[in-house]
């Protein structure tokens, strides 16, 4: 790995951070000063074009590409601000703030996609290492940055309607964007120190967001639970880091790996440290044994935030687990030299997590809570990626890549499902299955989208969830863990039961009494429909995601060898 040690490589994360700050600034400038501000934005945007032109001449390196892309995107962002001003010069800041948040997330996504395309088309593309190897931008980072950004865009779009009449909206968007920044940095973190900092950066805004509806007891209680368990798991995690540091004398992941390659006498200390790290990941990804906050937090939080945390935050937790355990604690090497079989831990956690999540989901009466448990179940499926790494080494990239694919698809289908809940909450319809009765007659488009999400989550071939699950189970089988795939398949079949209950309620049941839906919130509708369209389109268009994910997995798995070519013939 060599580095074009440029901050621009972190573009997707910087975008989110900058947009978060921009949102706050926009909100603080009063209405009277908006015209000069907007004009200033336009001028700045034009200036950015100049920068882009300059950058075009430096092209060829990731640095040059980065400057060009950012300048172009920055120009667009400021033009959006200006346009929103033109559309609504005397209106509230709501629209402006929301549009800027969405635009920022979309640019972050575009930037990540652009770099991914660069990696995909350039044969000698290399990961960018920053700040003394504390951060790394490779395909896996970019893929997860793309997940964080797309979820953020959908959530911000949906929040415009959901937040109608609430105070502190700019703060809300800023917190979402800053949490997303943390998640993007988690994707890039390459040392236990940056891992911890990025995790806290993602967590702290999330606590506030879960408790955002501060007059709602459920929301506040959820926030408190989320915070307390978060604090507990953070302390576990920090203690785990200290034990690993004590054993290896290093925090940087490759350095940890090389320190361990010669063996260590403190095997027990290292093992306990790693177990504590697992605890931290389990919290972030809502896996057993730190899963119990999730149903409360998802149920109590504003629904767009439930979507955000259950999709983006989960993915970010997983990318850290992927990187730390594959890079620092190389499975085969560690087991051979020290006898620490962490793969076994993940096998147990995967089976327990998916079974517990699915069985608990099947018994719920509240749709949002059902989705929360289903989210735990999906964490179990994704854990198969790590749990299968101890097997046939050359197949590790398939199964780990499959986990990434599943998280990517999940970012759309699960976000969409929670945003549909947000839509239902917006209408003031209740939360149980019975309350959903007859919704299909009143809102066929949204309910059709929800049907797509649910069937895709269940793994029926109406959405890309079918393919990602298929590759996941296939990967587990070819890595030699057919029993993991079998448990996954059985769970997947079971999950159809509770997903179908929602479909049944929406389309088949008669409404209880009069069901009046007030209004057609544009933002929420757009977000739900967009997520559904992407979920369906990813079915025929699955290949680029699969290819990127497997290459990304290949890059972090030293033992995977050169199977990428074999896999894609």
């Amino acid at each position, binding site marked *: 790995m060599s580095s074009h040690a440029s901050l621009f490589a972190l573009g997707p994360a910087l975008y989110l951070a900058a947009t978060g700050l921009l949102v706050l600034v926009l909100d603080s400038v009063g209405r009277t000063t908006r015209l000069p501000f907007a004009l200033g934005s336009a001028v700045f945007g034009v200036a950015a074009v100049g920068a882009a032109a300059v950058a075009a001449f430096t092209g060829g390196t990731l640095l040059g590409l980065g400057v060009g892309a950012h300048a172009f995107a920055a120009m667009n962002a400021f033009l959006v601000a200006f346009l929103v001003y033109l559309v609504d010069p005397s209106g509230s800041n709501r629209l402006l703030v929301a549009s800027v948040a969405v635009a920022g997330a979309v640019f972050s996504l575009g930037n990540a996609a652009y770099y991914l395309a660069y990696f995909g088309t350039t044969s000698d593309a290399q990961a960018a290492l920053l700040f003394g190897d504390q951060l790394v931008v490779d395909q896996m980072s970019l893929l997860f940055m793309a997940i964080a950004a797309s979820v953020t865009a959908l959530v911000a779009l949906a929040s415009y309607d959901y937040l109608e009449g609430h105070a502190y909206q700019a703060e809300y968007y800023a917190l979402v964007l800053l949490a997303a920044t943390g998640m993007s940095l988690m994707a890039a973190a390459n040392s236990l120190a940056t891992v911890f900092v990025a995790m806290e950066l993602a967590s702290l805004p999330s606590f506030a967001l879960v408790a955002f509806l501060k007059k709602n007891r459920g929301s506040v209680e959820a926030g408190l639970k989320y915070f307390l368990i978060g604090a507990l798991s953070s302390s576990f995690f920090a203690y785990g880091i200290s034990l690993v540091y004590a054993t290896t004398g290093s925090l940087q992941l490759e350095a940890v790996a090389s320190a361990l390659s010669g063996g260590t006498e403190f095997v027990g200390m290292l093992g306990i440290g790693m177990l504590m790290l697992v605890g931290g990941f389990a919290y972030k990804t809502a896996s057993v044994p730190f899963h119990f906050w999730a149903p409360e937090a998802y149920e109590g939080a504003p629904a767009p935030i439930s979507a955000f945390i259950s999709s983006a935050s989960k993915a970010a937790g997983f990318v850290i687990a992927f990187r730390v355990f594959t890079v620092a604690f190389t499975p085969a090497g560690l087991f051979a030299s020290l006898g620490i079989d962490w793969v076994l831990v993940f096998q147990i956690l995967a089976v327990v997590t998916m079974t517990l999540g699915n069985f608990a989901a099947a018994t719920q009466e509240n749709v949002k809570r059902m989705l929360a448990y289903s989210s735990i179940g999906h964490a179990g499926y994704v854990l198969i990626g790590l749990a299968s790494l101890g097997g046939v080494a050359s197949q590790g990239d398939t199964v780990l890549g499959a986990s990434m694919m599943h998280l990517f698809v999940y970012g759309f289908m699960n976000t969409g499902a929670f945003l549909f809940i947000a839509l239902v909450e917006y209408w003031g319809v209740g939360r149980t299955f019975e309350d959903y009765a007859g919704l299909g007659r009143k809102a066929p488009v949204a309910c059709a989208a929800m049907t797509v999400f649910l069937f895709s989550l269940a793994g029926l*071939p109406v959405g890309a969830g*079918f393919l990602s699950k298929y590759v996941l189970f296939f990967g587990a089988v070819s890595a030699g863990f057919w029993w993991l795939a079998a448990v996954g398949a059985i769970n997947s079949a079971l999950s*159809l039961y509770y997903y*179908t209950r929602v479909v*049944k309620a929406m*389309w*088949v049941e008669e409404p209880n009494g009069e069901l009046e839906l007030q209004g057609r919130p544009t933002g929420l509708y757009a977000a739900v429909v967009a997520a559904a369209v992407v979920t369906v389109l990813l079915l025929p268009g*699955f290949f680029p995601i699969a290819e990127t994910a497997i290459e990304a997995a290949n890059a972090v798995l030293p033992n995977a060898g050169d199977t990428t070519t074999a*896999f894609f*013939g």
Partner: protein
Amino acid sequence: MIDGTIEALLAVTLVASFAVLVSPDRYAAKLATALSLLPLAGSLVMWSGFEPAGNALVDGESAIGYMSQVEWFDLGGITLQWFVGVDGVAMPLVVLTTVLTTLALVSAWTPISERQSQFYGLVLFLEASLLGVFTALDFFVWFVFWEAVLVPMYLLIGVWGGPRRKYAAIKMFVYTNVASLVLFIGFVALVFGLGDSVATFGLPEITQALRDGVAPDGLPGVGAESLKLFAFLAMFVGFAVKVPVVPVHTWLPDAHVEAPTPVSVLLAGVLLKMGTYALLRFNFTMLPDIATDLAVPIAVFAVVSVIYGAMLALAQTDLKRIVAYSSVSSMGYVILGLVAYTTIGVSGATFQMISHGLISGLMFMAVGVIYNVTHTRMVSDMSGMADRMPVTVGIFVAGAFGYMGLPLMSGFAAEFFVFVGSFQSTVLPSAPVFTGAAMFGIVIVAGYLLLAMQKTLFGEFRLDTDYEVGRAAFHDVAPLFVLLLLVIALGVFPDLFMEMIETAIEPVASIGGGA
């Protein structure tokens, strides 16, 4: 290579489905019926221009009409592809699907009054999925369509069905979906077992690899023979639920009784054929050695389905349940024909799929027409209906005779082929015994149909509901009449389909060791 014909057929049907979904309720019925004429005409054009040349799976490319094959993407060393085409087995089923869909749409005009655009749109979506199932030649494409059938079916029963519709819909959904999972695992395990010898999920390629004697040993720790046996059993269970074979048939009567008439027509007429079609394609074409090894137990299942289904029908008091159980019985003949592995037997089984599709469609529609005017289906509630509805009852009686196998009706031709084929079977030990036992089923069929007709249709007019019996509308009777004509046409000229079926079946029978 893209031929475009089948793509156009599917696209037209799908577009029609979406157009109807968003159309206003007032126009939905007529619009859907009119639009369904497009795939109907398309399939007839395909049928008239089709040159049968063998079996799509066994003979490969040369035997496939209207073939399209393009690579989609690679996954785990296996290429997924868009691969569709028809042969002598698929072509008649495609025609059956389009014909029955149009007639079912017409039969829906009277009973369906709520949420019409959704109903008709879903029926057209169902048609598109069914066409996909019968034309797909790649496992992945096939499976996507196979599963897609479930969604509209679930909603059609669950929303527009009778009083216990929710239970019936969810039962159907759970039964068939668990079955799909089992068959998926079985088939995928088989393909992975084949390892590098197959590069795609294309059904012809997999069939070829298995025929070339490639032993599926790619899965560590599992022997080739046990993997093949496992795959065969998993797929057999998966398809048996769909057929359905006793003892996994219990979802069917519930689904039929609750489903509205047009949905029953499609369920009995086309959906059940998905199961037998898949059995023929997968179990009997790909794994003939296992199929012949297991000939006796399969034949036992077939005969039990025939006899037990007919006896259950005998015990019913609901006209629709009678027809529903008789489907279980009739599908037993298909399995018997398949397991015989003679050209005439397997072709007869395929012909029985078409024939039963038309006849059971006719019977369900006739029961539906009677129900529309009487609002009861209970045998004990009515008597002498012939007095008030002579035309409907006349067609009903004709259809029932078709069911019993009256010569010059398609039912006779189909059952005749099946029995001749299974009698001559060299693969099935003591074939005459099984054949004889199954033939006894015909007696029971005749018994319950005559009994039911005598009680309800003939004798003095009596009706224990407060409905006035009016005349059935012309558009209720017209599809019945069309179906009756088709049943007679196929009975008189079985070669309309039989010839192309035989060209496609001969290779299958010969690899199975039959004649």
